[in-house]
């Protein structure tokens, strides 16, 4: 069997679990959780430095760049211009053309601004970024992002940080059926079964942060998510049995011992 590789633009990965760096109880716990997750890609955010308190150890000191590919995001951007500038700064800072594009439309739901996302995606593709856009579970928006040249689409399973799991598996399945680029479920995965369900739909990878970071034991949950992602992928590749309404005995129904006629 040939290797089951996740290809994002010109980059290949074996792990199908992408993890965040936010909300951990400490950076040491984050580092241990990253290790346990088996992830090869970790996300970071881009923010203004605090001019009153510059210096000291920073997040990047806790990420081994020989081991992990860093995926900067444009989280917190509410318009295409801010997202594009953030992506350009991230490229300069981290020497990567990978960008997790987020253009947020609303602070309470953190749902994406689809129009802003499309505008920013087009500009970033033109600037040779490998664009991985966060988007709603909307097959049409995903198709449009693919047509613009994005390297993957990243529909949400549920609102960011909600842990509600795959709220609309039908839309995710439609997106996956029609996409020619990888589909990465981003946001909403709360526990291992959610990860497995998403992967069983056939999506190519998962991106999660809060589901691991806000578990009581983030390192143990990272381990669980690793196994669930692999299990879901394998189950998808294996092809599940057909569901049936009535029982179908696993043991032979012939040559039964019978003391009474039936």
């Amino acid at each position, binding site marked *: 069997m040939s290797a089951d590789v996740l290809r994002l633009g010109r980059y290949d990965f074996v792990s199908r679990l992408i993890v965040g760096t936010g909300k951990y109880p400490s950076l040491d716990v984050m580092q241990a959780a990253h290790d346990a997750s088996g992830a090869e890609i970790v996300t970071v*955010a*881009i*923010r203004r*430095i605090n*001019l009153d308190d510059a210096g000291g150890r920073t997040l990047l000191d806790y990420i081994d760049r020989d081991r992990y590919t860093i995926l900067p995001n444009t989280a917190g951007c509410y318009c295409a211009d801010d997202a594009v500038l953030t992506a*350009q700064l991230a490229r300069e*800072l981290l020497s990567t053309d990978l960008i997790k594009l987020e253009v947020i439309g609303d602070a309470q739901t953190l749902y994406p601004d689809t129009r802003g996302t499309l505008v920013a995606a087009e500009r970033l593709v033109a600037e040779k970024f490998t664009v991985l856009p966060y988007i709603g579970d909307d097959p049409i928006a995903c198709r449009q992002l693919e047509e613009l040249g994005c390297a993957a689409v990243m529909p949400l399973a549920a609102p960011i940080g909600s842990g509600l799991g795959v709220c609309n598996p039908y839309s995710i399945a439609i997106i996956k059926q029609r996409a020619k680029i990888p589909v990465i479920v981003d946001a909403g995965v709360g526990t291992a079964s959610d990860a497995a369900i998403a992967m069983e739909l056939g999506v190519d990878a998962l991106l999660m*942060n809060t589901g691991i970071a806000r578990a009581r034991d983030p390192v143990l949950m990272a381990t669980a998510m690793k196994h669930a992602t692999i299990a879901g992928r394998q189950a998808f590749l294996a092809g599940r049995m057909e569901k049936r309404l009535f029982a179908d005995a696993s043991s032979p129904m012939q040559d039964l011992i019978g003391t009474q006629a039936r």
Partner: protein
Amino acid sequence: MKATINGRAHELPGELTVAALLELLGSPTSGVAVARNDRVVRHSEYSSDVVREGDRLEIIQAVAGG
């Protein structure tokens, strides 16, 4: 000379390079990236790119996020 740095008004002694500005602010030069008037200033341009009256600067770093 006035300039806006990370959204805050700053009074600077006069025109200065991005490298000199970072030193003045006590900012590290590695682990940060800079934009001046919405254009990224490459690391290689820090000692040649000049900050002028009214410029808007963004100095950013990577932080924890998802």
